[in-house]
């Protein structure tokens, strides 16, 4: 088990490093920040001077090595725009994102599994079809559309909920729903499919032949087994959730990491983008490791191979 975790963590770190490198190169080849940092019509000499000052004139390999060494020392750099340590800039943003993303994820999991079970138990009935229609909508319409629709209904028309800002539970309702909707839909559809599949398995009849009640057959045998495949996609869903957060935070002006990432990417604020991506990569990797471990916990065949 321990060696499995160590291997998994090393793999995760490699993945994080790869993503960081990719972003490092991508942001640099697609533009630089001197455009907005200098007044319009600045002389080429002034641009050149600023680039030199920011070490942007150096070969990309040298920049990369320097940044990487800084990174290893825990120095994440200073934001070009905010002129302060990026770690400081992100600390509150990170908290805001988590306070939105974690409840949204729990909501998505709870509702997704719940709806999936109901749909499977009511297979081929009106309830099943209704739930599947709702979730196919969640699956296909982009989250910014969904967010805007919510705003139109609950803020503009009904005046029930504020369109943006933080501070109370009412502020969270729409961003949370928007963020949770996509993953909830995927989890619901997957739970339903996997439960329907498991219910055709012979060991379900085997369990019935023991004289267990239908409820016990469902919970202890069908559900338990179908959750194995649901858990495997949780990690993917967390990934979706992060990209969703970028959109949702922008639509609802939620002062989180996603919003910050978008803005700093637009501004070519390299250190800020890189650190933001690093945080995202770390959290996704961390969750995926947790998912793998819990997968092993649910599936004895994998668990045995840990030993």
């Amino acid at each position, binding site marked *: 088990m321990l060696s499995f975790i160590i291997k998994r963590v090393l793999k995760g770190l490699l993945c994080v490093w790869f993503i960081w490198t990719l972003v490092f190169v991508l942001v640099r080849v697609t533009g630089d920040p001197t455009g907005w940092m200098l007044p319009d019509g600045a002389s080429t000499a002034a641009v050149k001077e600023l680039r030199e000052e920011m070490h942007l004139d150096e070969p990309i390999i040298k920049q990369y090595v320097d940044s990487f060494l800084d990174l290893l020392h825990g120095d994440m750099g200073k934001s070009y725009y905010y002129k302060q340590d990026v770690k400081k800039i992100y600390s509150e943003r990170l908290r805001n994102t988590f306070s939105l993303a974690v409840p949204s994820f729990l909501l998505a999991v709870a509702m997704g599994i719940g709806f999936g079970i109901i749909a499977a138990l009511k297979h081929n009935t009106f309830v099943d079809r209704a739930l599947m229609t709702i979730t196919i909508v969640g699956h296909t319409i982009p989250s910014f559309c969904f967010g805007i629709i919510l705003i139109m209904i609950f803020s503009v028309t009904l005046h029930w909920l504020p369109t943006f800002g933080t501070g109370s539970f009412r502020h969270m309702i729409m961003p949370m729903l928007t963020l949770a909707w996509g993953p909830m839909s995927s989890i619901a559809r997957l739970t339903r499919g996997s439960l329907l599949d498991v219910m055709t398995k012979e060991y379900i009849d085997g369990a019935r032949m023991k004289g267990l009640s239908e409820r016990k057959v469902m919970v202890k045998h069908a559900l338990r*087994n179908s959750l*194995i495949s649901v858990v495997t996609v949780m990690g993917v869903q967390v990934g979706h959730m992060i990209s969703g957060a970028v959109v949702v935070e922008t639509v609802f002006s939620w002062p989180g990491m996603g919003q910050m990432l978008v803005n700093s990417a637009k501004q070519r604020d390299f250190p800020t983008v890189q650190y933001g991506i690093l945080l995202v990569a770390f959290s996704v990797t961390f969750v995926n490791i947790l998912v793998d471990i819990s997968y092993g916990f649910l599936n*004895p065949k994998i668990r045995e191979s840990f030993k």
Partner: protein
Amino acid sequence: MDDNIIEVRGLKTYYYTATKVIPAADDINFSMKRGEVLGIVGESGCGKTTVARSLVGLINRQNTRIEAGEILFEGIDLAKATPKQLEHIRGNKISMIFQDPFVSLSPVYTVGNQIAEVMRAHSTGKVDKKKERETIIELMRKVGIPSPELRIKDYAYQLSGGMQQRIMIAIALACRPDILIADEPTTALDVTVQAQVLELIRNLKDEFSMSVILISHNLGIVANMCDRILVMYGGVVVEEGSCYDIFKNPRHPYTRGLLMAIPSLKEDREELFSIPGTVPTFTAPVSTCRFADRCPHACDRCREKEPDFVDIGPGHRARCIFADKEVLNA
């Protein structure tokens, strides 16, 4: 006859598909006494599993219906039993083992856990974990699992097919049922293991003094064990009789075909005989002899209506218009 442990009368179980109604078990009649072994034989698709599952209510009510008939067991009609009544009977009074033990065992619980589950389902009061463990180990030893105190913690995939089927038998017998239904219990196993598992069932039948319904597509498998045999074809019983009747005086062309297809009896043959063609799927109602398309003796009369049973002797009858004629011996 009061000493019958189970009595099935006129059982009809039909499947409803989008396009047709399949009479997979059509007017099945039999009864069993305590300790008796009944064989149900026929090629794949003849309705054997349908009969077995009807007995314990293991049918999907969305597309399957018991159209008619009674399954009398301990004073209740299992064809109309409530879910609660069925729960009480399954695994407790009537147990069933399936063709493929690997897919019949849950992949995520240890085998010990799965044996414990059936015992707990039918015991009232608190479980004494230590005693329970001893009972399970004892049971595992009884079904021939070596070093059960280690194997108790294994998962199904860690055991061989033969061992898995022994676990299924342990689960089935844990509550000392009156009837064991074994649906093709050896079909998925290696040839070398098949005989051992059959031998085990035979021995345990005596020890637990239970009745056994042994289902197989191979007459040779049921030969050594059964008191009575039902030969099924296309959803109906085409011949029934004692083991002796079926082997020494088969009166239905299908039974004769099955006998010729037994591997061990015809070892010296170049090629194993098999009845040409396959079992068709019928649509209710059927108005012909179901075997007519494959029968070497078929004539126009065979297709006028479904033949009735012809009595051959005590407890021996066959559903063929020529059953008591010499034509068949030609």
